[in-house]
């Protein structure tokens, strides 16, 4: 099957620091890929390069047939990046809901302002997505009145309202109190079951183990090990993978 996301020879530097080192991979439609690794390994940067929140320095990103190279400028190039962002939805560690808008206003902001969808239609779509994340009754609540878990679910609904072809999750549960993580993972599980293509940077190893089709373990800007969860978690080949997994309590390092 033709991949829906393809990252080709991607390099990224922060000043003189080489944070992504010639990375290439592809994601098939409906595939769930979890990227794991220590903080500073470059996993969030990789995710943010896919929708150009970080500008990569070399290589290219392809999403649903649109190839955007790392280098470029001018109106046409900016339009390409814009189109790429419309094909991807992103969920952030710190939710980043718009605090001056209600839950529903957050969700319809993209369709109305960016796509020019008629308001009634956007509200229907927004309510559909709020219902999906189980927060239809919170439509008129402002973010400060919502718990962290509820905020993150609204943020997922906001991303879904743009009808992306790929969802990017950047540590979606890392800022949550332990008792609120489950409700967010449930929504993500639901998306997996619906066949959403998902790229997730996460520390939730149980989620990765249970729902990922493929795990990428990153260290120092490189892919150390890539494979199905059974292989990565139960039979890691590289020493760095073993060390990381035993540090997070997922592997007995004998």
């Amino acid at each position: 099957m033709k991949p829906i996301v393809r990252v080709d020879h991607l390099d990224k530097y922060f000043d003189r620091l080489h944070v992504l080192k010639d990375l290439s991979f592809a994601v098939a439609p409906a595939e769930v890929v979890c990227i794991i690794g220590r903080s500073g390994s470059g996993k969030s940067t990789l995710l943010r390069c896919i929708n150009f929140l970080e500008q990569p320095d070399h290589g290219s990103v392809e999403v649903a047939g649109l190839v955007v190279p790392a280098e470029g400028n001018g109106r046409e190039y900016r339009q390409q990046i814009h189109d790429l962002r419309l094909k991807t939805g992103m969920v952030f560690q710190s939710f980043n809901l718009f605090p001056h808008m209600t839950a529903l206003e957050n969700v319809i902001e993209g369709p109305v302002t960016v796509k020019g969808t008629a308001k009634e239609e956007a509200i229907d779509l927004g309510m559909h997505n709020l219902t999906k994340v189980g927060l239809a009754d919170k439509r008129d609540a402002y973010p400060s009145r919502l718990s962290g878990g509820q905020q993150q679910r609204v943020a997922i609904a906001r991303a879904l309202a743009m009808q992306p072809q790929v969802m990017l999750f950047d540590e979606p549960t890392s800022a949550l109190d332990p008792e609120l993580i489950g409700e967010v993972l449930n929504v993500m599980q639901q998306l997996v079951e619906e066949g959403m293509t998902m790229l997730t940077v996460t520390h939730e190893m149980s989620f990765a183990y249970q729902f990922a089709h493929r795990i990428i373990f990153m260290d120092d800007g490189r892919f150390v090990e890539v494979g199905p969860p059974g292989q990565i978690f139960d039979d890691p080949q590289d020493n760095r993978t073993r060390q990381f997994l035993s540090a997070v309590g997922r592997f007995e390092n004998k």
Partner: protein
Amino acid sequence: MATTTADPGSKSQAQLIFELKQRQLNRFKMGVWGSWLVLLAVLLLAFSGINFEIGGFHFRTIQLDFAFIRQWMPYIFGGVGLTILLAVLSIALACILSLLGALGRLSRFPPAYALATFYISLIRGTPLLLQIIFIFLALPQLGIVLSGIWAGVLALGINYGAYMTEIMRAGIQSVGIGQREAALAIGMNQSQIMRRIVLPQAMRLVIPPIGNEFIAMLKDTALISVTGFAWETLWRAQKVGRANFRSLEALLIAAVFYWIITIIFSAVQARIEASLAKGDRGR
């Protein structure tokens, strides 16, 4: 109030401590109010015209011409409306200019950045009084003739706009990077992000400091009196004071009016600030 003590008549420890703190707070407040009243009384006494003797010392206080005050107070009061109007018009102009200035300061387009910093440097580098006189007296030489009122509004607006640019810039910058990223991720462009996401949040933050600027502006409108063609509070006081050789009384009247409107607008501003703070919690 629910207490866990066995005797329903006795108060809990927490309640007792709370009441003690309340009493301390009330005592402080009463002390401040009382002292204010004493200071005000001393000030009034100083202008009472009463002569008295304490322990062999003769005290003479200032004798005011109350007939003059009664006669001219309404006339001077007639300038208060214009004072407020001038401040409102000037702050409106300053808000627009400072927003543009802030956008320029944050722009990565060199001419926009240069224009903003040039404006701020030029205006902050010259006296406000000079700017007012310049616009009123120097511009006519170039064929631009403005009335005293509009010259004053233009000068105050331009001047305050330069100072308020920093307030606006701080407000805009206080909106976190995460907000921009979230907006970018749903495909918004720079101008949509500014209009829909950043400015609405920044404006809530800059309202209290702009209130402060407005209160300062209320008194700086008095500088417009130098044009001689804006019949605001200070101009009227100077006019009747000189004409009757009663500048002491006339200026005191004007001072009292400025003080009162400042107290009123400060109270209004405190309420706006409190309700904004409440809105933050309540949302």
